[in-house]
């Protein structure tokens, strides 16, 4: 079966109704969604205008399951809250002791 490619479609952006909400309200909606849907490993800590939802992992998820778990979460978030939302996790800095001397900070895309 020939594969269907989709090279031209724009990735959905958050709708106007979502963008006009205050950030604290957006966060509240997502964190309520997390509780209601029992994604108890997750906590939304920031949201960007692009639709990026920054998530803190409150427990370790093994590599074999974290992808599916988070993609499932994102899929439901898009379907139920807003199609323009997508998930990113709190980034991790380099653990290499020598390279750390360079002082590079991973830009987190949000204000601490």
């Amino acid at each position, binding site marked *: 079966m020939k594969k269907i490619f989709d090279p*031209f479609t724009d*990735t959905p952006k958050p709708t106007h109704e979502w963008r006009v909400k205050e950030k604290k309200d957006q966060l509240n909606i997502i964190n309520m969604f997390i509780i209601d849907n029992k994604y108890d490993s997750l906590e939304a800590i920031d949201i960007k205008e692009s639709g990026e939802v920054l998530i803190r*992992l409150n427990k370790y998820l*093994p*590599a074999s399951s974290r992808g*599916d778990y988070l993609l499932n979460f994102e899929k439901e978030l898009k379907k139920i809250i807003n199609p323009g939302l997508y998930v990113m996790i709190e980034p991790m*800095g380099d653990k290499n002791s*020598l*390279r750390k001397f360079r002082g590079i900070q*991973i830009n987190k895309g949000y204000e601490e």
Partner: protein
Amino acid sequence: MEVKGIDTNEGKLVLDDHKLSYHYDRLEAWENGERIAPISVDMSLTRACGAMCSFCYAMMQESQARSSIKIDHALQLVDDFAEIGIKSVSLVSDGESTLSKAYIPFIIRAKENGLDVANATNAWEWGPEKVDQVLPHLTWVRFTVAAGRPESYAKIMYKGPEYTDVFDKAIKNISYAVALKKRLNLNVTLGIQMVLTPDLIDEIIPFAQLGLDLGVDYAVIKHCSDDEDGSLGIDYEAYEPSFDLIKKAESMSNDKTKIIAKWNKILDGNKTSYKRFYGPQFLLQISGSGLVAPQGVFFNAKHSKLHIGNYTEERFLDIFKSERYWRAMNYLASSDFDARTMMGSLPISHYVSVALDNHVKGINRIEQGKGKKPLHHNFL
């Protein structure tokens, strides 16, 4: 369209283009919706490294956890590569593989399994005892040489300009490899690589001269990748003042040593032309932490939704056959993903991804390669 490369005494050397034309059967299988094995895997056997290069993308590739990669893990991995039809493996990725105990056994087993093997290294811990054992099995070795002058090299790659002993050690080991290649008439390509950041313009000519002095096969000048949030602070607009010097460096090429710039990547900068990211299905990356993710730009915990598994916890064969492997790959090929804003710039499969995007858009269809294959054709 013919693949772009540089003619050398040993064949056409392609550093600034893709080689998908020489894997047309797999390209057709992909278009037909088959679950294809990657042609090439780029990986590391450790996240550790003794250097501290200012341009190092590995600083942005920390995952949730690091696993210690034992020799058995590495050998099983390369057995699985062979079983599913992967054709080559390069030890580059996010760590200095020469530091791993698995380094020599891995290379030997990969070659026994019929894979082409390659390595990028700073050569600091790559003395004759290691070189003698691995060089006959390697298709190419690329040495990270940040600058041609000892003080600059030490400043960029280590603690400061006074630590020139690291430069001396690297040059000694590279020279040994060049001599061994010549003595044994080995079919291996040896090159040095400078990762150019806009502030290093004065290092371009000394770097090219060092390549000529060492007698390596090539000296390549490449762009610096950055993550989607610009953590390294690379200003891609600031490369332009270096263009004349890069061209001057290229003109220094001689019969033995070619000075090459990766113009396509330098000019593309962070202006990604593709929205969908098809390249990882052909050129997969694996972290020195054991993490399997479609590409190195997704190793960081930030991109956990694209983490597929860890080959120290389960066989790679099972990871490759899992639904989660294809879910991650298909996600990148879907409209949920925008490569222009959701990942770092210039990933390892950039050339492949540009070509596949142009292919499916009908802008420039990839044609089957004809005639003599270029050097290293199994490395995309």
